[in-house]
């Protein structure tokens, strides 16, 4: 597996939401199906945050019930450190097909830039919002909220 040549981790808050409101938001997300993921709730992801991951694809899992991109992301503060592996969750294959994805849209070694809503619990995972492939083109249909 090739190591990433250049990578950047750039987390930023999309909204300035105070913690009390964030808890309320979580409740609403948990209670209201309007925010439901296709096969489970999305509320484990912090939808008030967007993070841009730039790294190298380890594996593209074209699987039910969800596809996943495993990507190595170097530590921006310590480029000599071992890259961190992130797991990025997408929809089911049939959903992705309709958005322009294919089983081989990503391959190991591809340089990618991925915008995600990260997991709330701090694990290195998140919900995909937008993926830019090695040719600089966006793959699939990015979320309107992706910045």
């Amino acid at each position, binding site marked *: 597996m090739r190591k990433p040549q250049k990578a950047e981790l750039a987390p930023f808050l999309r909204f300035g939401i105070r913690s009390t409101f964030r808890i309320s938001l979580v*409740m609403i997300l*948990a209670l209201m199906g309007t925010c439901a993921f*296709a096969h489970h709730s999305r509320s484990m992801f912090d939808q008030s945050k967007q993070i841009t991951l730039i790294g190298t694809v380890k594996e593209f899992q074209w699987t*039910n019930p969800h596809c996943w991109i495993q990507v190595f992301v170097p530590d921006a503060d310590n480029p000599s450190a071992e890259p961190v592996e992130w797991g990025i969750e997408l929809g089911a294959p049939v959903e992705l097909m309709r958005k322009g994805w294919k089983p081989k849209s990503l391959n190991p070694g591809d340089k990618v830039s991925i915008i995600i809503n990260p*997991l709330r619990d701090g694990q290195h995972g998140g919900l995909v919002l937008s993926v830019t492939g090695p040719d600089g083109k966006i793959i699939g249909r990015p979320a309107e909220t992706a910045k």
Partner: protein
Amino acid sequence: MMTNGIRRTAVRCVPWAIAAGLIAGALFPVGGQTSSKDRIKAFAKLPDWTGMWELDAFVGQADGQQFSAEGQRRLKEYAAALRPSFTPEYQAKYDEIRKKIEAAVAADPDHPPVTHDPLCDPPPFPATSTPGMYQWRVTPEEATFISTVGAVRHIYTDGRSHPPQDELWPTLMGDSIGHWEGDTLVVDTVSTRKRLYMGELSGFFVPTSDQLHFTERIRMANHSQIQIDYTAEDPIALAKPIHATIVHVRVTDFSRMVEETDCEQNERDPVVNGRFKTVVK
């Protein structure tokens, strides 16, 4: 013991009994079967609902399963229309469930409690088309709903009634019978689970009694749209029936039914102690 005279009479009667049986079988088919010509005529009277369909709110969904602005607007409309109005007894049950969920979220907001069934199982009626795409198979005897998330509804249109009460028990899809009024399929559904879940349309399960009863009037409003006038009634749990018009639109960007809920393949959001625990590696 049979005497010889009776035996001879019985033997003589056998050919007549066979002939009578054949004639009766032709005139009164067993099990509702009809001749091929009659069945072809019956097919010709049915509307053409072929194609693939999905809830209108899903149109234009983006990665991350983000709804379009129009989709979000439609979901809000559905949520408002489908909001239950409970009897005092069931309002208290609903409030209790809601408090428990809120307490569970507050206790561990990073790992939200599971408030609905993850769709490794088919979504229960009436959430059968939320989410996923689906097809109709319309025959004279039955209209069958088949979705990409594994939901299958059998709506019997052969004139049968619901089974007697002592032969019914709550199931994912309940028991559905229907009849055609012109091009409209009128469906009556009973014996669903004792909780109401509309998936994307209204959120989590709400408590209901075993009196929960659904009526649907399903018709193709135009080539691109199937409209379902939906009513849920429960005289014990609901102070008034829930009415909504649900719109399904023709899928034009995909033409294959591919299942999407094979969770054994790569389930990385297992439910542990009632909460989602995402496995990132």
